[in-house]
């Protein structure tokens, strides 16, 4: 898809030089680029437009990038976000990912690395969209739960309706593609977060815990999301006998 219609990228950066540099390079790579110089402008733009990726500076005048990202996620917007920031210590990265960001790049950054990360995020989303493109792959049913990958929604066995985050949906997607097989934590990290294995394998465990809470009748004794000690996880649609 992205080869036919150029992917639209929104760059939110208050420094005019950086914004111009990022914009020109993304254009040179064939992306459509729009620029916003603060969070408010970005949120306004996003109410009227769709895009494939948001490159979001953390330190913005007014509302900062983290709160812009949180607002987006609260609105149900699942567009991937690549954070740019002058602060790159681990705590800041964690904050960015917790706010719903997909990746995090510290300033000053290497142009090639930046372009690579943009490609990886877009490719991940291409994979996810393609893997959910047909009516057969868009839905997943197991143990009375029903997951709609395209709408990021699910209905659990209890009849409760659930909103999925993009990471939860992606993890479910990877597991659903390998029903009955062992999927390692590293594989999950690689497929869902990309090559930048920054979030530790503990992050994966936390996401699995959340999925169990959403979809298992007894999260303490899971029948669908099984832990394979020392290796990773196995997903069963029928439930463990």
């Amino acid at each position: 898809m992205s080869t036919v219609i150029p992917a639209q990228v929104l760059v939110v950066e208050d420094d005019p030089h950086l914004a111009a540099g990022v914009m020109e390079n993304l254009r040179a790579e064939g992306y459509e680029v729009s620029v916003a110089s603060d969070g408010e402008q970005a949120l306004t733009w996003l109410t009227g437009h769709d895009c494939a990726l948001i490159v979001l500076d953390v330190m913005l005048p007014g509302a900062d990038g983290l709160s812009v990202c949180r607002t987006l996620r609260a609105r149900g917007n699942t567009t991937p976000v690549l954070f740019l920031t002058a602060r790159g210590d681990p705590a800041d990265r964690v904050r960015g990912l917790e706010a719903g960001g997909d990746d995090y790049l510290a300033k000053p950054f290497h142009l090639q690395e930046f372009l690579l990360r943009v490609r990886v995020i877009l490719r991940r989303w291409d994979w996810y969209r393609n893997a959910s493109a047909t009516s057969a792959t868009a839905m997943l049913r197991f143990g009375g739960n029903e997951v709609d990958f395209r709408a990021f929604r699910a209905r659990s066995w209890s009849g409760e309706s659930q909103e999925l985050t993009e990471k939860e949906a992606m993890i479910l997607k990877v597991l659903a593609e390998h029903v009955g097989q062992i999927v390692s934590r590293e594989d999950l990290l690689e497929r869902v977060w990309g090559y930048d294995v920054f979030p530790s394998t503990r992050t994966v465990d936390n996401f699995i815990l959340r999925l169990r809470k959403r979809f298992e009748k007894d999260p303490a004794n899971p029948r669908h999301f099984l832990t394979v000690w020392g290796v990773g996880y196995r997903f069963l649609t029928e439930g463990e006998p």
Partner: protein
Amino acid sequence: MKATRVFQLTALVLVAVSAVQVGWWLFDQHAYTVEKVSAARAAYAEQVAAAQALLDSGAAPERVRQLLPGIVISAGHASLAPELAAALTSEEHRRSRQYAWEGSFFLLALAACIAVIARALRAEAHVREQQDSFLALVSHQFKTPLASLQLSLETLALRAPSPEAARPLIDRMLADLARMEQMVTQILESARLERGRVDLKPEPLQLAAAVSRVIAQLAERERPESVAISTDIAPTLTVVCDPLALDVVVRNVLENAVAAVKSAGGGRIALSARTNAQEIELQVNDSGVGFAPAESARLFQKFSRLRAGASGYYGTGLGLYIVRRLLELAGGRVSAQSAGPGKGASVRLTWPAAAAQATTPAQTAVGQETRP
């Protein structure tokens, strides 16, 4: 640094323990004295009782007086000699007084020690905190122009653009370098002001000439096309000021105004000056992004940057602080007003009039003693 802190904390603990010990010693000594005196009183009471018993059994008062010398007998009734009773009381009081004086002196000395050490520890923590926030801020401020510089250079390397296409990139890089240079200058200037290491040599200077020199430098470096600068300063107007300091003051205020106007997408800056018997005033009005009136005092504090970007999106938060310090050293002052965000701003710089300044040259002599 760490060893000093450990030493200070150890000393603090030792002194505090000593204070507690002195307190205990005081209490103990007092209790001991009270105990001793009451034991002596009890012994005397027994002697009085024995004397009375002897008298009652018919012993001669003379004989009783010989056996128990501290007893006085009058009309067949034995009692303790008044001078002995008085001596006991006075001994008790003397000891109590002595302990109170000595103890309070020790406690006072120890309290002074505790106060000195605690004060040093607090001051050190404050300095460390300031250094940390300074480092964090400076590194953050440098990273944006650095990132932009790196991006431009890597773009040149990756895309090998034509000379025409490369021109804007090169301009951007030069501007980024200028930004960083400005930051280094400001950081050094503020550090020197902080330590009082400024050697100001006041001399009469034409304000109009200084202002136009700064405007020319600015135009050369930044080419702010979207900013129209006008001046209305009488060429005869003279301020007595250090030439470099005047340059720094005018440059910082003007750079600030340019950044504010640029952030607002362009506009005007008007400089005007007037004088009365006591003061010379330079006013810089801009049509830039302005600021909330409540923020006007905060503007001149170190590291204060306004969210609306009135101090420039790349400001260090030091520019107006430097202006204020330099003006204070010259016996002048600075203030800023704005009707609110988006409504422009006005900065007013005031120097003492030349005549008044000339009579008090010592005002600018701060820091001269630090020069060898």
